[in-house]
């Protein structure tokens, strides 16, 4: 399983290296022996990707290591769910602002994360509202920073 993972990682790195290298060829200042210019750093990265990608790929074939899987199917589902929730949170902040989106998202996440453990709905609601308000007070009033007000209210 780990071997396959390494093969995928190696292949992705090689492709990434080639893409980065091709992109750097469009830069206006060329690399010369007397002045490497702005291409040098990304080219070093591209070279690193290709060499390391090949190294990881070949090593995984030679060593044939057996390891545990990174995440189970259920685990991947959980990860994707959280990413979608966060994407919703960003959209929520854009539309409704921090003060509305944050307690809602906190409640959803605490409910999701609390599966299998003992926690009450009342406790989660209290935590969500209090945390959102405390963060708001600290950032806005204590440190004078601004938080999203939302398209609906601006």
């Amino acid at each position, binding site marked *: 399983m780990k071997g396959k993972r390494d093969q995928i*990682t190696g292949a992705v790195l090689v492709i990434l290296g080639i893409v980065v290298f091709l992109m750097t060829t469009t830069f206006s200042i060329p690399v010369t022996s007397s002045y490497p210019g702005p291409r040098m750093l990304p080219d070093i990265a591209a070279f690193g990707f290709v060499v390391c990608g090949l190294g990881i790929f070949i090593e995984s074939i030679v060593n044939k290591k057996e390891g545990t899987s990174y995440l189970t199917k259920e685990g991947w589902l959980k990860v994707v769910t959280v990413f979608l929730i966060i994407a919703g949170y960003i959209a929520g902040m854009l539309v409704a602002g921090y003060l509305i989106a944050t307690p809602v998202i906190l409640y959803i996440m605490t409910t999701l994360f609390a599966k299998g453990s003992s926690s009450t709905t009342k406790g989660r609601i209290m935590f969500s509202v209090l945390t959102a308000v405390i963060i708001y007070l600290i950032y806005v009033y204590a440190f004078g920073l601004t938080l999203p007000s939302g398209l609906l209210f601006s």
Partner: protein
Amino acid sequence: MTEFLPYIIGQLISPFNLMLMMLATIVGLIFGAIPGLSGTLAVMLFMPLTYSMNAGSAVIFLIALWVGGCSGAFIGSVLLGIPGSASSVATCFDGYPMSQKGEAGKALAIGMVASFIGTFFSAVLGALLSQKIANIAFALGPWEYFSLCFVAITMVLAISKGNMFKGLASASIGLLFASVGFSPIDAESRFVFDNMYLMGGLGMTIVLIGIFGVARIIEEYGKGFGALPDVDTKSIKGLGITLGEIREQFVNILRSFGIGLGIGFLPGMGSGLSNLVAYSSAKNASKTPEKFGKGCPDGIWASEVSNNAAIGGAMIPMSALGIPGDSTTALLIGALTIHGLEMGPMVFKNSGNVVYLMFATVAVCGVLILILQALGMRVFPLILKVPYHYMYPGLIVISFVSAYVDSSSLYKCGMMLIFAVIGILMSYGGLPTAPLILSFILGPTLESNMLKAFQYTGSAATFFTRPISCVLMIIGILCVFSPVIRTLMERLHNKQK
């Protein structure tokens, strides 16, 4: 140095700064104590809060978070057998067995006093040494600075767990991220795709919190939070150590302090390595090495003195050369730049007061933490009982609020989400994060010095004709190939056997 004393004292006794220091220390301690979190994460998450502060308050706040995180890491090691962070791995070896034998109070007390000794004296020594090293650094040119950055990155590769290729790949990702935006000197637009948000480069906050913070939390959730074992609080009674016991450990403390300070000073290394080296040295030097791993106090002294001594050690190259000693100092360099403090030899001339304030804050935090820990010994187990289902959603929200505050734009929140995906993919591929952090932060310094060096001489050979640069380049190259060299040596050794 004495001319800065009024400023330093003024900053440290200001009620606002005192409150900030107390708050940041407690937050740092909590982040350090809870397995999965760390002082580094605390610095990342709360860095945007300092944007509205003056330089003095920002320094006090960030340093207190860092020192708190380093000093709190032993709590999880002693009470749970799970290190709060990599800096306290070796503390587990003897701290947890002591707890199991009913000596948790004594193990915690050793951790507290050892952390204090390491933190306080390394800060004093750091303050005395850094100006001298900065004076030497005036003689360094772009060749040496490039080589120093190169060594800092490669040293992390040399100790990368797993294989060299993965460490190098991670460093390459950091360099690629550092390339985004306008290039130094030539102002060539790179990987910007006509997007105005990318023109200034990728912000440190979104890249690091996304990859290091958000991704880790989501990954933990995907893997399923393991419930932490219960802690026996009955054995926590009083400090349980005497001055005589501290005197007995004098040689061990001195040796571990030297190791911590030295490793902390080396670019790219830090407390994650120093605690293991100091522990091994203490074991090797002990007359009763068989007691190690079974609840021997010497092991805790060695680990905790060395990991905290690395704080002062790491601050010397950070302030004198602008080169980070570890990932947290790399972050601090970035954060202080926002406040107009360009670390390096000139900082002593331009903002010497703030630099010495940094060292003074470390020393004061050392004392403050000792007091807090001594008073709150019975509260430690409660820190470890904070439910993950409350803590992690809270941290996710703070992460995205930090991304917003960083640029007052939700675009950066979206970018952070993308970096969290990259963090998950890196973790899937087994790529370590430390090389990425260092190469991302050092990338611009590395590049601008490289380009300056070429502008001056028009040749790469100068990197090897200037003695200091040549030595550093050779060390860097050896570090890159050290895993291969080590494997070959081991094979040769086994064949000879």
